[in-house]
């Protein structure tokens, strides 16, 4: 289904949705939201693009196969879980930088855990949807 309206709208919606998903990711570690929702929104952005322009062109924007995001995300999350063990704290303890960073706010190991989840969710959702789309 090629529609000029959808294609034009997607050109503007894709960056906005990605920005929104990044906002959700950052908001997560003190407030509701976080990696899972952010990942879903980001993958919806790509799904919208693939509906408008076809799966092949979305794959071209992504550059890599989405499945390769899964191990990267898992690795980031696992490392952030285990990081406190280096400081002789139990795993999963939140470690925080002393000073907040402008715009982003407080940064801690929880953010990296969320980042991992974010990547895994994008990887899983896009892998499943693209597999179904390319089968047809």
């Amino acid at each position: 289904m090629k529609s000029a309206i959808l294609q034009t709208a997607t050109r503007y919606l894709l960056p906005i949705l990605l920005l929104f998903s990044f906002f959700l990711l950052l908001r997560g570690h003190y407030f509701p939201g976080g990696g899972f929702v952010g990942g879903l929104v980001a993958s919806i952005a790509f799904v919208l693009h693939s509906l408008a322009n076809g799966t092949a062109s979305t794959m071209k924007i992504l550059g890599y196969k989405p499945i390769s995001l899964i191990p990267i995300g898992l690795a980031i999350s696992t490392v952030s879980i285990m990081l406190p063990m280096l400081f002789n704290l139990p795993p999963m303890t939140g470690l925080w930088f002393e000073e907040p960073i402008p715009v982003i706010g407080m940064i801690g190991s929880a953010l990296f855990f969320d980042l991992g989840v974010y990547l895994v969710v994008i990887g899983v959702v896009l892998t499943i949807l693209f597999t179904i789309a390319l089968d047809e």
Partner: protein
Amino acid sequence: MIDNHILAPVFVQLFTAVIQLMFWRKTLTQRYLSVGGSFIGLLVAIRLFSRVYQDGILTMNAANWDAPFGIVFVADLLSVTLVLLTSIACFAVSIFSSIGVSRQRMLYGYFPIFHFLIMGLHGAFLTGDIFNLYVYFEVIIISSFVLMTLGGRKAQLEGAVKYMAMNILASMFFLTGIGLLYGLTGSLNMADLALKVRQVQDGTLVGITSCFFILGFGIKSAVFPLYYWLPSSYHTPPSAVAATFGGLLTKVGIYAMLRVFSLIFVPDEFTRTLLMVIACATILTGAFGAIIKTNIRRLFSYLIVCHIGFMIGGIAMFSKLALMGVVFYLIHDIAVKTNMFLIAGLIRQLRGTMDMDKLGGLYRDYPKISVLIALVLFSLVGIPPLSGFWPKIFLFQEAFLQTQYFFVAALIVGSFVTLYVIANMWAQVFWKNPPREEEVDDRFAPMQPYRKLLMVLPIGMLALTTLYIGLNAEAIVLVAEKISSQLIDTSTYIEAVLNKNNEL
């Protein structure tokens, strides 16, 4: 004592799986990583075991939240013993898998999923929080479902549907039980629950809740009315997968039952009678099911069911001696059952079939391998110096002390049928002349020597473990005695989890 490193076995498996995901579709690298990761996991488990054996219970508060509120991980002797055995079995299966699993299955992620499964097992053994236990059960189910369906043959899918349906039902019962328990006490920490359940006035409600746990764990560990999913699904996946399932998965159910019924619910008269009836029925149905089977793996599946009954019976008697028997049997069973399915895989490699009617003459062609297999089979039956013999002594002794003559009878029938079935299998597979000489599909002989070694080595390793358990029974009895006294007198466990808050 607080030790922040008790989750190390879980992390080793998790890391192995994640790194393997990075090498998606590079099966050779995955094989090396799997064997390497399992070996490191084994070393870590040995270290954890020796620490707990010397220093007593170790605990870890995840994310530094104090005990009854956050999730606690507890390494007591029962947990670490099972972690150690799981690691041994995992190492053996991972070596065997490098040859015994088809390349097609490896391409679709056999190894990462296998390590996620082992991670789930380690986590289930180490957690001290009942909801976290449920979460690890889910990790186990999801990975085992993937392992069971990998390959997508029709028989596999059929078995997997039964397996999945029953296990989801079990999870639902388990979750309902947890919900009721939380409603009664407002806590999920097992040590905290132990204290709070005793204060609950309404005894019937506690009894009903405990029935949910019996149902949930009963389905998982395949006891009498709920076991049929096991024999109808365990013969479908490749032998390496069946070995993991047969050796380890049902034992998680037994572990959970031991933990919940020693710590949270102390079995009352009704529960004990119920468990005893279930145990006798499980032993008898499992044993009679095993008699008529001609496929080796189906036969082994029924033997699993039969021997689960021994352990349930031990839990039903609930005394120090009986629990010693249960723990010893658990130790023996993990090593032997894993090995039996690996042996089934080897026999299939040697002859291309697992049907006893079509097998024969293995002893003539492969005398050394046959002797190795005989050692394992004798341990399973429980010929005196070998490992299956010792736990049965404790069970018999306690059953006579408590005048549970039905259980004594069931034990005798179960043991004799096991003996008969195994002797029959030995005669058919190893001694009998093969039915038609010319059609032997031997895929083992043309294999390169190192590949042969990779198939036989894990079986030898597990056989050595069994031999050690049998010949050095004194050490194992000592461990089992310590574990069972910790299970009977839970105050050390509860103190270790809750009281250390004051030290901080």
